[in-house]
């Protein structure tokens, strides 16, 4: 127990926590924006996969790192656009369409990767984002080095939490987005095009998911592996519910989750002889289910989530 407590105070643990949390922050914010506008996006797992592949491929083909992030975001947007065409404009089942998007995006990722990258036993690598220290802030004991000696993408994720909060709660467009998810009829009464708002939210959200995926191949690791998203997208869906659709809580949720994940990985090394490592690996998934159980009863889903809107509808 003492050992665990001491570990909690090490910089390396918290640095790992932030590294694990970063893609989750991006993707959770992305899903949160979609759901706030009334659209469940189960394409998240596939969009993260294709974001990871696209961003990595851009750099592997000679592009620069930020170009790769932009490319990943654009690819994510395209899939967000397809999803919104199906569920926003045509009003189809958000569940089935989302699963379809996930299947399509991940199969295109694997197809493109197999096609463009010649087979080798060790996957080819790129030079990923390097960490840099933020002056002053990084000299805070323990947490300073963990929070402010990271890659630029991690700082971007902090900023995005603030921007998302600010836009959703302090700007008129944020109110419009939230209303599209709560009471779209009221939106329309104001002369606002609900379908357009929802489409925009889904596209922006999907771009964030793709960047979350790209973080994995361009910062956390330096190569693309098959199945590397490994359920992270689904975990983000649980995190959105856990965060009761609030950006700040989503950030804290992602950090909390990442803390357990980092401890789990360390516990694997300590307990390897006694307990099979798979038991530890299961923990993140159990934890997500547990988190949903804790909040499910009082979860205030956006009222128009999953409900298609047709112009001229009256409730």
């Amino acid at each position, binding site marked *: 127990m003492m050992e665990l407590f001491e570990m909690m105070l090490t910089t390396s643990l918290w640095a790992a926590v932030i590294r694990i949390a970063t893609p989750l922050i991006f993707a959770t914010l992305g899903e949160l924006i979609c759901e706030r506008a009334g659209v469940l996006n*189960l394409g998240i797992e596939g969009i993260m996969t294709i974001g990871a592949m696209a961003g990595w491929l851009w750099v592997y083909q000679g592009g620069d790192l930020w170009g790769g992030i932009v490319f990943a975001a654009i690819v994510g947007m395209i899939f967000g656009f*397809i999803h919104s065409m*199906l569920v926003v404009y*045509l*009003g*189809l*089942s958000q*569940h*089935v*369409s989302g*699963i*379809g*998007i996930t*299947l*399509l995006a*991940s*199969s*295109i990722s*694997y*197809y493109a990767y*197999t*096609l463009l990258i010649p087979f080798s036993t060790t996957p080819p690598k790129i030079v990923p984002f390097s960490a840099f220290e933020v002056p002053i802030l990084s000299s805070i004991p323990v947490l300073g080095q963990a929070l402010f000696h990271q890659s630029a993408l991690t700082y971007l994720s902090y900023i995005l939490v603030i921007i998302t909060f600010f836009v959703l709660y302090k700007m008129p467009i944020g109110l419009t987005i939230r209303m599209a998810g709560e009471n779209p009829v009221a939106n329309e009464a104001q002369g606002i095009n609900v379908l357009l708002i929802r489409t925009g939210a889904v596209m922006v959200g999907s771009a964030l998911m793709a960047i979350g995926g790209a973080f994995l191949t361009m910062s956390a690791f330096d190569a693309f592996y098959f199945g590397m998203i*490994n*359920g992270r997208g*689904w*975990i983000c*869906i*649980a995190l959105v*519910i856990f965060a009761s659709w609030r950006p700040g809580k989503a950030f804290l949720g992602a950090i909390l989750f990442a803390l357990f994940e980092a401890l789990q990985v360390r516990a694997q090394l300590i307990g390897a002889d006694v307990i*099979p490592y*798979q*038991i530890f*690996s*299961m923990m993140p*998934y*159990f934890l*997500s*289910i547990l988190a*949903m*159980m804790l909040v*499910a*009863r009082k*979860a205030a889903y956006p009222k128009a989530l999953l409900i298609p809107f*047709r112009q001229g509808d009256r409730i």
Partner: protein
Amino acid sequence: MRIKTRRNTPVWLIAVLPLLSIGVAFIIGAFFILWAGESPIRAYLALIKGSLGSTFAITESLSRATPLIFTGLAAAVAFRAKFWNIGAEGQLYCGAMAATLIGTGMIDLPAPIMIPMLFIAGAIAGCLILLVPVVLKTHMKVDEVVTTLLLNFVILLFVNMLLEGPWKDPMAMGWPQAARIIDNGVLPTIVAKSRLHLGIIVALLMSILMWAILRFTVWGYEIRAVGHNQQASTFYGISINKSVLMVALFSGGLAGMAGVSEVAGLKGYLTLTLSPGFGYTGIAVAMLAQLHPIGVIISAIFLAAIYVGADAMSRTIDIPNYIADILVAISLLSVLVGAMLTRYRIVWGK
């Protein structure tokens, strides 16, 4: 442009729709083949030859269709009641584990008793694991989409743990696989010199059974009613929780049977590569069949043929066999669009 509800849907439209969707998928898929620098016509001919071109190819397609019929039925039954069970993949492995548990020497009975026992055990295992999300949904209002999806990963890790630990077959030269199913439990092949086994007969029987249950029994009526309109169903006196439980029993059970069929029929032993995503493909199967149990048979065979054909094609032409997944995903999305056209029609102008 406006969208109007159709009073009645022409039957031909429902029948043609899945074919149209697959057609759309092949047209869009052609661009991916062009991207690979190959001729789509040559590639598709190779695909068709590889899936239907010989007796062996046809039996391969049918044996690939077997698990897809089970998982397709599992999705169809659940989706009818709007219970989003995306966990067929995990339930499949639970069925496979149950079959391995009792089929590798724990009991040894004559085949006519042993084989049904394996299927029943697999079905029970699939049901039990799905009960977790069901109870969480009915008693704690936890969304079943996420729980069923996350359990897939948990179950795969559990299988991995068994295969690297207590269940590892010492005779398997270090490969993580379980011991073979005993002879009396192995599903006999039904066409000589092929891998097509008894599982497909069971799958066909289950399709007919599910169709009859949905069509003629009170349970089936309740499942369909709950899917259509929950409020009206409650008003009519149908217990939503009871119907969801019923759906879960059928859906999880069917997915579990898919695992039994693969372990005892095709592979003979449990491995981590038992299912290349049959649970997820089952969703596409069910949607193409428009959730009709008999339609599931046809769409499962269609999609299986695409997979088998793509495997054959990737051996002769330099196109990654992931093209099959792309084709299936596009068919799923386009049948979704198409299904809307059977319920609504688009009116141009005012």
